[in-house]
């Protein structure tokens, strides 16, 4: 290629890892395992990884040296696997495709008329180019100003003349609200929102509700033996969590006697 050398010189910093610019993967492809994990998350899939390798080694996508590309790709896959990183099945499938193409190219080629059709790489090249095109378009799309993110819409108050209607919400609204919260918490990272133990929290609520207006409840009454083991465990965890949060007190006046669960709040009121 004419501009091969100029591409070489601008061999760009491909990434920053922990703030440090990385311009080259070391030739022997050694990458510390934690960085490897980061790379794995960075690639959207095997096509993305292949495009990266093609760019990285300055290969001609329209005339891919299959042996070289396959070697690079397999080195990557091998590294991921030795580090026991979860590798999507698509990566392995692609490895098989690459090896298949490579081996077909080693076969003696019979006289053929339509080279384009017969090149075993054609389909792979087509997919790479199409994905690359969409990838670039995604980047451009993300640069378009977006309502709410880059500009706000006007929202002037208007009195509802007719009878008040209550807003409807859907589960999707809740999902969106949570996304918003997560995005924000990642943005300022002051608040780490971890995955909620939903079922435990749910049972915590239920227990508190059961205790409402009562001085105590018998431990056994909180459990429904018919509900199955997982349910019992979750109920028990919820109870422990409530104790930890000082919501309830558990007491057993005599050994092997009845265990009582009391709401702490009523205690302090009395």
């Amino acid at each position, binding site marked *: 290629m004419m501009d091969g050398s100029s591409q070489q010189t*601008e*061999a*760009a*910093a*491909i*990434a*920053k*890892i*922990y*703030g*440090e*610019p*990385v*311009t*080259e993967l070391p030739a022997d492809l050694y990458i510390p395992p934690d960085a490897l994990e*980061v790379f794995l*998350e*960075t690639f959207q899939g095997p096509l993305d990884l292949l495009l990266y390798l093609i760019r990285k080694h300055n290969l001609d996508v329209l005339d891919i040296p299959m042996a070289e590309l396959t070697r690079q790709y397999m080195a990557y896959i091998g590294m991921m696997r030795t580090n026991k990183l979860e590798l999507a099945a698509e990566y392995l499938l692609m490895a098989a495709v690459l090896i298949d193409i490579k081996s077909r190219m080693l076969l003696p080629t019979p006289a053929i008329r339509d080279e384009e059709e017969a090149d075993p790489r054609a389909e792979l090249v087509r997919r790479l180019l199409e994905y690359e095109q969409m990838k670039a378009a995604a980047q451009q799309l993300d640069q378009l100003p977006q309502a709410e993110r880059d500009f*706000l819409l006007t*929202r*002037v*108050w*208007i*009195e509802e*003349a*007719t009878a008040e*209607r*209550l*807003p*409807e*919400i*859907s*589960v999707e*609204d*809740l999902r969106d*609200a*949570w996304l*918003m*919260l*997560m*995005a924000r*918490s*990642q943005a300022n990272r*002051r*608040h780490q929102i971890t995955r*909620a133990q*939903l*079922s435990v*929290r*749910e049972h*915590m*609520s239920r227990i*508190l*509700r059961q205790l*409402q207006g009562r001085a105590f409840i018998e431990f056994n009454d909180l459990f429904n033996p018919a509900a199955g083991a997982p349910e019992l465990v979750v109920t028990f965890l919820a109870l422990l969590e409530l104790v930890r949060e*000082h*919501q309830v007190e558990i007491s057993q006046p005599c050994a092997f006697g009845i265990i009582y669960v009391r709401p*702490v*709040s009523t205690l*302090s009121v009395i």
Partner: protein
Amino acid sequence: MAGAANPAEIKRIMEAALLTAQEPLPLSDLRKLFDEELGAEVLRRLLEELRLDWDGKGIELVNVASGWRFQAKPEMQKFLDRINPQKPPRYSRAVLETLTIIAYRQPVTRGDIEEIRGVSVSGTILKALESRRWIAPLGHRDVPGRPALYGTTVNFLNDLNLRSLAELPPLDELGTVIEQKGTIGLLPVADAPGEDGPE
């Protein structure tokens, strides 16, 4: 850079903020718009000017209990009703987020909600959800002030067509949808030049 020294610019920015805000803006919020320390007096005078600028329009600037807002004049109602046929109202994001946190993290106190949202939660929001019978206080946390603990109600599940809270969308999956830049220390560099510097 974000400075807005002259009064016309201050008014321009306040106007944009008030026209786009979902809720009335108190002076304390309006003040946050500017780098400079603007006194309440200055802001009040400029708000008054802004109010007069809108004199004669179909929209007016008013000062309600919780702050300043633009609103349509009553005389506009008959026109606006013709194209606003009963659009179901929507809860503000503040309400939705509060409800979401209560649904997923119950039982929680108002303080817990504020902690997660990163902003204060007005009592109006909790009251609105309570009077909708979607949330209820379940007890009190045994800490100073004994704040109420909120949870969702059966009514909430019914209105959302859920049989149990377990049918809410799982949260861990949602993490894959938003950009993970906070958690990944990898910053792609588009065209940073330089051959040197590999580790």
